[in-house]
């Protein structure tokens, strides 16, 4: 069942429109020591990519990249890791709820770098697709920064006349020299 307003009532209210262009704080996604070999080894083995550009210094140095690089979108994952010294979110989640799905209470949810919520009664969220644009591969030692913004919000009218929103966020990943590495655009349907 849709939570959408009646067909005559736009879901794209002035308050929702005002979110377009709103940006979150720019935050560092990497740890203080930047991109390191062991994390890179674990990641590349999990995507089954044996490319020597990720681990063979002599070979990598001779490529156009001039040294060890990471897989194209590695930088979009490193911000998900648990920071050393933080309370263990897994233990906390299952202490609070023995049937935790592993997501609900596990995320640290510090809110740093997060976008404010879109003010809409449309609560159901579906993934409408992603786009990844690559500009440069991260390198060993790089510090990675990310900044998200609401790039676009459009309204769609469904067959039953109810309204839904297509919310597109754009997250730009940069290195310590403020060079763009990768842009991730993710669209969600709110209905």
């Amino acid at each position, binding site marked *: 069942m849709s939570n959408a307003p009646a067909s005559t009532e736009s879901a794209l209210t002035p308050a929702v429109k005002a979110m377009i262009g709103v940006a979150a704080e720019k935050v560092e996604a990497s740890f203080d020591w930047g991109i390191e070999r062991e994390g890179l080894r674990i990641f590349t083995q*999990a995507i089954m990519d044996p490319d020597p550009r990720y681990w063979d210094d002599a070979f990598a140095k001779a490529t156009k990249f001039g040294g060890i690089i990471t897989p194209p979108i590695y930088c979009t994952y490193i911000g998900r890791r648990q920071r050393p010294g933080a309370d263990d979110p897994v233990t906390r989640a299952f202490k609070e709820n023995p049937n935790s799905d592993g997501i609900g209470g596990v995320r640290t949810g510090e809110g740093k770098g997060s976008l404010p919520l879109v003010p809409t009664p449309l609560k159901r969220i579906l993934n409408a697709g992603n786009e990844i644009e690559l500009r440069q591969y991260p390198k060993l030692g790089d510090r990675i920064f990310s900044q998200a913004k609401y790039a676009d919000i459009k309204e769609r009218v469904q067959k039953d006349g109810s309204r839904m929103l297509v919310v597109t966020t754009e997250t730009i990943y940069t290195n310590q020299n403020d060079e763009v590495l990768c842009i991730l655009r993710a669209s969600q349907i709110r209905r």
Partner: protein
Amino acid sequence: MTTAQELREKKQTYWDDVSVGHQFAPLIIGPMTPTHLFRWSAAIENWHRIHYDQSFAIYHEGLPNILGQGSWKQSILPRYLKDLCLPDGWPWKVSFQHRAMIVPGDTITVWGAVTKKYEEEGLGFLDLDVGMRLQYDAESCPGRATIVLPIRGGKPIPYPFVPPKKLAN
């Protein structure tokens, strides 16, 4: 599956040698196992139990089995495009949607086919249909991509890559 040696010795595919309709060599992955899925969850610290806890996935969430992660698929397509472009091309962008679920036992064929060929600011662009097809012909990750391949005798593809103004978002 591609080997390290094949990637080390990868010969450049040139823009001149590819036509609309060309199908690039696929990348076959699998059969997937629960261990593959668990390894990805651990690598990115995604503790959602539907990806590694079979009892939870089936009896609590009503799923057919533990599920392959969308984030893993999202990493495989750029990896495939990277391999196509090596050593001097650029896998500029890819967009996709998540469709058929991946479960243990599935074998995945990552594929790409050229739909458009054009030149801009002296660089050779190819638009592709891409996807991750399962062994029973269901499409798990349909999408589109744009890659840049060197033109014989043409200028080098800039790195870091800067898209031509006409094509930039």
